[in-house]
């Protein structure tokens, strides 16, 4: 959600902290570096201890007001560029300011995972999710180093360390994959099962109506939808399935529940992004729309503003409300409640802004219909 009537503020679910603004690899599709936004170049390479202290103070202050825990996600760039000592100090500083039930997690490309890093994460109760797109020939198409070299071997080394750690049951939170619509979903799914994650999340590639996502030939085309439908058919009948969050969320909504992530359904999420300099930004994926799309007009910073001031502002409320699609096409669609208009960044068009259905509209419709029909058929068996 949440427009919290009690306080008249947007309630925070997640604070996503950019602890490093640079990355040790150069994925072709990256929305931070390779889709036109240049914000990263003017940011400090890493969050300083002074900024971490200011952030911890701001979050502690917000928790006192909100009285509801929020998740802390460490992000980048590549967050493990901090190295174990700085990472430990940063997490400990934040932990000390927040209630013990606060969930800490970290999204990494996996290359810099070491025993020392895992020890820090175990000590600080911080889980790790690793980005990997599939087996080598799929992963290395896009997830490459700064000289264009594949990263598969190094990522796999990191995953092996993570899986073999004595605290792996806690630490290993899952895998995150960007879809290559030319790949075979059966091959990708089987590969991920061999890595033993508790779950996998699949992401559409970033793109919009003006700059179509790679592999999508037109607004009406359904390459990604067809890929997901093939995955769904495998997933539903696998006797020992992984958890696939995106498909689970679609099924949950169709069954009358709610989603756990943005991009499907009509649940709003209170997400705050903090950059390495302590400035407050919008959802960072908006960078893929145009240069600076993730910046507020107000120059908020944890060094100079209380977060309550941010969350009660008109500008933040307008940004928060922008999760909901405005397009008349969406509002007239029978699958509106399930699809939710997709992710905001996918609605962008240079001429009309965000007032459009998702560029993945046709894919979503195809997939949702397939999920619905599968559920209907399976229900008849019970």
């Amino acid at each position, binding site marked *: 959600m949440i427009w919290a009537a009690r306080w008249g503020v947007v309630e925070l679910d997640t604070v996503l902290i950019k602890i490093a603004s640079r990355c040790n690899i150069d994925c072709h599709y990256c929305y931070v570096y390779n889709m036109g936004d240049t914000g990263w170049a003017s940011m400090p390479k890493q969050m300083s201890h002074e900024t971490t202290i200011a952030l911890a103070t701001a979050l502690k202050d917000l928790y006192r007001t909100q009285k509801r825990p929020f998740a802390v996600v460490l992000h980048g760039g590549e967050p493990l560029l901090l190295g174990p000592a700085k990472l430990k100090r940063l997490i400990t500083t934040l932990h000390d300011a927040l209630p013990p039930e606060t969930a800490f997690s970290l999204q990494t490309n996996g290359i810099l995972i070491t025993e020392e890093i895992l020890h820090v994460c175990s000590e600080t109760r911080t889980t790790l999710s690793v980005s990997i797109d599939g087996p080598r020939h799929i992963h290395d198409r896009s997830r490459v180093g700064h000289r264009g070299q594949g990263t598969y071997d190094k990522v796999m080394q990191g995953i092996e360390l993570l899986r073999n750690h004595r605290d792996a049951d806690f630490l290993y939170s899952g895998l995150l994959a960007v879809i290559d619509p030319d790949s075979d979903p059966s091959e990708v799914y089987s590969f991920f099962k061999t890595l033993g994650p508790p779950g996998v999340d699949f992401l559409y590639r970033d793109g919009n109506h003006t700059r179509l996502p790679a592999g999508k030939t037109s607004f009406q085309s359904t390459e990604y939808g067809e890929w997901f439908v093939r995955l769904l058919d495998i997933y539903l009948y696998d006797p020992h*399935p992984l958890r696939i969050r995106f498909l689970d969320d679609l099924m949950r909504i169709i069954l009358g529940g709610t989603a756990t992530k943005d991009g499907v359904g009509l649940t709003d999420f209170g997400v705050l992004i903090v950059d390495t300099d302590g400035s407050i930004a919008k959802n960072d*994926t908006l960078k893929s729309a145009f240069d600076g799309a993730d910046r507020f007009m107000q120059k908020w910073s944890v060094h100079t503003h209380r977060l309550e001031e941010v969350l009660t502002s008109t500008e933040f409320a307008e940004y928060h409300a922008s999760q909901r699609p405005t*397009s008349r096409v969406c509002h007239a*669609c*029978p699958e509106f409640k399930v699809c939710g208009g997709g992710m905001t960044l996918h609605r962008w068009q240079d001429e009309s802004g965000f007032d459009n*259905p998702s560029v993945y509209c046709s894919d979503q419709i195809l997939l949702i219909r397939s999920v619905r029909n599968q559920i209907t058929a*399976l229900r008849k068996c*019970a």
Partner: protein
Amino acid sequence: MIKTSEPPGVESDPTEKPPELDVSKIPSPVLARLIEEMRNEEIGTAHMYNRFHNRHNRSR
């Protein structure tokens, strides 16, 4: 404004409520698990699902 074509027909009503099911007879482990999880949430035993940012996969 971008216009989309009319979506094809569906075989079920989008607002239809699921009837009571014998989960053990559902030939899909995934669907059986989801239905069971949702039942547990309804009775308040597992409502603390985690919210998370879309770029992060936090499975628990």
